[in-house]
């Protein structure tokens, strides 16, 4: 049924070796080109930010100001922050672009991000109960997630998640649902974990909603609203890009059993099956932090993202060779597909219709059906 059953251990190993070879080749080639690329982007982002904040104080230029500041925040978070914090540019030895030192223009602390994203999400991609990005503890994103009445609100909650994305991401590490719904976390625990988050949040809120408005004097409301709009733009865009990367309908989720004794080749294949790309031009790739190449990103999270497009044909060739799907489509198609899934899963029901690419649920009886457990 699933592709996991069709592949032999030798094939898994061969896939691992072939993908490792791509990775090693790119690693050996890192240098000047990558440094120039990321520095150029950082410069562009800072220019947009400065220009945006100035324009927000000049009424006729206000809409341009929102666009510039929104674009700056998107670049800062996606092609720069997300990728730098993956350690993609650590090889440069530049403290300003180092994964341990970088912080980004959003409420989430760099430290918490690296835990939930780099560690949990990238190690346990699309594994239920392990990868918190599967629904953020808020939504039902997979048939194998047991239905609860609260998931009737799947759609409105998705809208809310998009709107306040930076703050949801900021508190993601707190696993609020464990306190609110499942009662496995105490209020005291939660308060302790919230301290560093609040410290960062406070700074971000003060900057965007107190100090820059105050600098504008009588135009304070204009700047305030402009900053709201810029943050909202970034929130919605970032959330949409991320959802498209893992939740279009054919993308698979996995039971926890897959990660027992998982080999490197199997890990690679899980990353492949758990991710989806979307097509677009150069601007689309840059503004999505090259998460338009989510598949390549999940295979090689620490390779500089602007390289994904170059290695994509090789990854596709490997997929063809081993009969693995390579999920891609237009941004619109992937978005519609994702929302369809979210709508469908707001209602009870465990199995996907017909196609049934999903791996059996954790509680399935036959161990033979647990593809990676053996």
């Amino acid at each position, binding site marked *: 049924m699933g592709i996991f059953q069709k592949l032999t251990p030798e094939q898994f190993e061969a896939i691992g070796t072939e993908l490792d070879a791509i990775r090693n080749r790119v690693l050996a080639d890192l240098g000047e080109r990558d440094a120039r690329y990321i520095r150029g982007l950082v410069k562009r982002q*800072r220019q947009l930010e400065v220009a945006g904040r100035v324009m927000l104080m000049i009424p006729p230029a206000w809409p341009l100001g929102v666009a510039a500041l929104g674009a700056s925040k998107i670049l800062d978070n996606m092609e720069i922050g997300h990728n730098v914090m993956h350690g993609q540019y*650590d090889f*440069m*030895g530049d403290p300003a672009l*180092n994964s341990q030192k970088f912080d980004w223009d959003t409420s989430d602390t760099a430290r918490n991000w690296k835990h939930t994203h780099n560690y949990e999400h990238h190690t346990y991609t699309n594994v239920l109960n392990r990868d918190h990005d599967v629904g953020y503890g808020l939504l039902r994103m997979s048939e194998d997630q047991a239905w609860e009445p609260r998931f009737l609100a799947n759609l409105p909650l998705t809208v809310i998640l998009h709107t306040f994305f930076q703050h949801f991401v900021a508190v993601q590490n707190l696993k609020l649902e464990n306190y609110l719904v499942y009662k496995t976390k105490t209020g005291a625990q939660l308060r302790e974990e919230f301290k560093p988050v609040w410290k960062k949040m406070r*700074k971000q809120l003060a*900057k965007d909603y107190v100090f*820059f408005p105050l600098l504008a004097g009588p135009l304070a409301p204009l700047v305030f609203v402009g900053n709201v709009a810029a943050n909202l733009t970034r929130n919605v865009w970032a959330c949409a890009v991320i959802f498209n990367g893992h939740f279009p309908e054919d993308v698979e989720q996995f039971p926890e059993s897959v990660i027992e004794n998982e080999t490197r080749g199997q890990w690679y294949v899980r990353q492949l099956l758990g991710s989806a790309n979307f097509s677009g031009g150069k601007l689309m790739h840059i503004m999505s932090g090259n998460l338009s190449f989510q598949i390549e990103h999940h295979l090689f999270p620490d390779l500089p993202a602007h390289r994904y497009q170059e290695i994509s044909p090789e990854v596709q060739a490997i997929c063809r060779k081993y009969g693995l799907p390579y999920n891609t489509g237009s941004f619109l198609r992937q978005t519609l597909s994702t929302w369809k899934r979210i709508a469908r899963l707001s209602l009870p029901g465990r199995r996907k219709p017909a196609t049934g690419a999903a791996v059996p649920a954790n509680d399935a009886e036959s161990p033979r059906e647990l593809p990676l457990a053996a």
Partner: protein
Amino acid sequence: MNTANNSNSFLKSGLRRVLSSRLAETLTTPHGVDRYLELFNPTWSVHEVRAEVVAVKHGTADSVTLTLRPNGNWQGFRAGQFLRLTVEINGVRRMRCYSPANSVHAADGLIELTAKAHATGFVSKHLKQGLQPGTVVTLSQADGVFALPDQRPDRVLLISGGSGITPVMSMLRTLLDEKHQGRITFLHYCNTALDMIYASELALIAAQHANVELIRCYAQPEQGGELQGFFSREQLRAAVPDYAEATAFLCGPPAMMAAVEKVWAEDGLGDRLHLERFTAAPLVIDGGSAEGEVRFARSERLAVNSGATLLDQAEAAGLRPESGCRMGICKACTCRKTHGVVRDARTGELSEAGEQDIQICVSVPVGTVTLDI
């Protein structure tokens, strides 16, 4: 006035105070003021010492002399000290130590570094062949205890070999700027006359200053130096009979330094000899008895102790901690050990078990060690 002096005064002015204020920090969070200043001029910074390379000269076939114009954060140095220079080569930052050779009184505020390009030397070769005027480099503040004492000694003996000439050149130039009256002997060792860095300037200084004696000793014959061969007690006694009265400053290749140190030690003059090493004795690494693990707390990584230095082990674990000389001299790699015992690979000495700062390039874990990296 040139642009850099403008930028220096720009940063020294009231604007500097504004830029280092809490408000500026708040408005530029989380990136900080420097990351925006760079947009306007790559040498502008509130915190970092950055410098523009204003001249690249090739004094000898295998050396290069750089003139750097530091920004206003440079606090100056004491004659003999070194700084850490960071240059970017093929997209990767590299840090090495160099000793400024100029006088501490240089009115133009420029820094002069001279590097010997080693045939297999990664950074020194780049400085010689690839560095263009206009490049912006990063510097540390000056560091090191090898320096002219504030109370200048009267009788000074400067002994150098090869590229080790740089810190003592700074001492000589500084003393001359101060119109030093005591006698100064400049004893320099190198292979041939053509290899001698600062040869013509030194000849001129010796000709113009009655209290400065220049003694050149070439390893090769018929180079026209005052001496020929290698350092020895006999040679020293003949060339500098009053060496025991002098305060001596020494910098050169390891073998030559060892020979000089031996004479001073035998004569019981150890405390009159100040020295600087550009290269350290080889490290003793014994991987056979390694046990425990290395925990990199901040990056949440774990490695089985391989017995190599903590810097090597961190790099093997895919981390890129800051590092420089990799031999325990420059302190660029210093970081916090929160738990465990380490052995100093140079001396074999064991550390305490508690929290302390260690140089990871010369520290080998003894059992499990936790680092804040």
